[in-house]
């Protein structure tokens, strides 16, 4: 059984059909990328999975559980964590606090025990800190640990956001354009970290990405969408050479050029 199955998902904003009858499956342990031109509905798919949008029709099943009935704040506890295209960090908190907020779903102490800061709360804080420190080690964020987000460089923010999502200890990680705004060197690092996250931590990764080099290097399978519709699914090379995908990106000129 697939880890995540999306079945005939549709959503319209007024007259704009953002997604129509899109279906795909993400298998446990793979890196699955979604590509497509701007406005294809990639981020819409993410917002539907994280329940920020309500689909018009269709189902999302994660680890055998129907997700389309759950409120947005219950998704993390199911084991899905996400990042945002333009970063949505807690600006006035430190990097460490951002990561500790990522641990929120694992809390087990009551309000009153927290007010009194009982030993159980102290133990829990130390356990959270350990989780956060492991992630800091993995993503090499030690230099920024106590810095407030506001004022951090964009590349660091992107990594902090991935780190925060890892602190949720998810089984599925949704990355919305992780490489946008990163320089080539940072993008290269990102490819290695994706591998680490996927192979060492065993986290299934679903990502929306424009950088085809990164997509080809990191993903096991690639889904191409355009205008909210399914175009192609396969390995990066298969999808890249698929005629529908080329038409979506380059227009019909590609066809006429090929014929001439």
């Amino acid at each position, binding site marked *: 059984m697939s880890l995540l199955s999306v079945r005939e998902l549709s959503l319209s904003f007024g007259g704009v059909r953002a997604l129509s009858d899109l279906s795909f499956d993400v298998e446990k342990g793979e890196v699955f990328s979604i590509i497509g031109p701007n406005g294809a509905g990639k981020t819409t798919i993410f*917002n539907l999975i*994280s329940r*920020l949008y309500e689909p018009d029709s269709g189902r999302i099943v994660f680890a055998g559980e129907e997700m389309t009935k759950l*409120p*947005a*704040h*219950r*998704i*993390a*506890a199911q084991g899905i*964590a*996400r990042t*945002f*295209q*333009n*970063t*949505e*960090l*807690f*600006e*006035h*908190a430190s990097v*460490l*606090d951002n990561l*500790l*907020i*990522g*641990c*929120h*779903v694992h*809390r087990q*102490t009551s*309000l009153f025990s*927290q*007010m*009194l*800061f009982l030993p159980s*709360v*102290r133990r*829990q*804080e*130390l356990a959270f*800190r*350990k989780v956060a*420190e492991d992630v800091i080690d993995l993503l090499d964020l030690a230099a920024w640990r106590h810095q407030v987000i506001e*004022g951090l460089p*964009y590349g660091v923010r992107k990594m902090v956001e991935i780190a*925060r999502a890892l602190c*949720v200890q998810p089984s599925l990680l949704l990355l919305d354009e992780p490489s946008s705004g990163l320089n080539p060197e940072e993008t290269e690092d990102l490819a290695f970290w994706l591998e680490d996250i996927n192979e060492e931590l065993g986290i299934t990764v679903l990502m929306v990405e424009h950088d085809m080099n990164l997509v080809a290097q990191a993903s096991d399978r690639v889904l191409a969408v355009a205008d909210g519709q399914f175009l192609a699914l396969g390995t990066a090379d298969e999808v890249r050479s698929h005629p529908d995908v080329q038409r979506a990106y380059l227009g019909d000129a590609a066809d006429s050029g090929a014929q001439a």
Partner: protein
Amino acid sequence: MRFLKKTRYEQDIALLEHNGQRFWYGLLLLLVLGAPFLIDGFYLGELSLVAIYAIAGCGLMLLVGFTGQVSLGHAAFLAIGAYCHTWCLGAGVPLLPSLLIAMSLSAAAGMIVALPALRMTGIYLAVATLAFAVIVEQGIAHWESVTGGYRGLAVPDASLFGLSVTDTTFFYYFCVALMLLATLALLNLLRSPTGRAFVAIRDSETSAQGMGIGLARYKTLAFALSAALTGLAGGLLAHKIGYLAPDAFNLIMSIQLLLMVVVGGLGSIHGIFYGALFLGFLPQGIALLRDALPPALANIPGLEPGIFGALLILMLIVEPDGLYGRWLKIRQYLDEFPLYRAKTHKRQKQFLRTERLR
């Protein structure tokens, strides 16, 4: 400058980080506890008022400074606390249980106010809480059988361990003890998951949800805790003023409470106390100023609210981080002297706007 070598995670959790802090906060505590021996009764009474304001400040700072929900209606919670406490004392409930009942009732009212807060932000929330404050004030004015209406309500005497709250020294220690408890509870919350959830909601509701933080639950909780602390302050304030009338809890009071946390410095615990001292002693300052001014100026009606308003606006323009923020900058200047750069704290323009899902 002090450089700390940290070797254990506990050091980051500890409330006091190093011996320097232990020394200075210890000295401050000694001063606060020794105050009755150092100053006369009038100023001791004023200090009790500062402690009461600080308790309300803890509540308001939790809501406005840490959860990012504006409230222009906190005088209503103060009123609910004060009237409930007075009524309970009149019915023969002892001091501490009566304060607990006042806190619970106030918290319940806070939860009711939280219902619209779940759908509103910013200025709309401010207007909604303002409306709540007006409703409560009018309700108190017209529910004469319980509140005495505009005739007012005398606050009965109460005592603990045989000591009466009319005793200035005992009342001072009582207020300070409750203030310390409130502060400690707030500090503890802020270093545990619940407090971080509040901060997360303040900074980004969208990603707070993504991290598993239920907005409805935590906003309601923030309002309830905030209202409970303000209700406690209301109960103590009842003893301080001795005679309750609806106009003690009017709009000006709500604005003063908000002024307190803004002037102190939003989002900082220290700011609560700077703000409370400011609010507690500003009337004295204005009275002294009145004596010094020529009579034509000194007798202008509304001088006090006018100065309050002007200071609030001045503060927002000159130092949005509040008195505590200013102090941090001064301290940094002294630390780095003579290497301090003039533009260290120049506010940077943000060129990056995130797409918000609202």
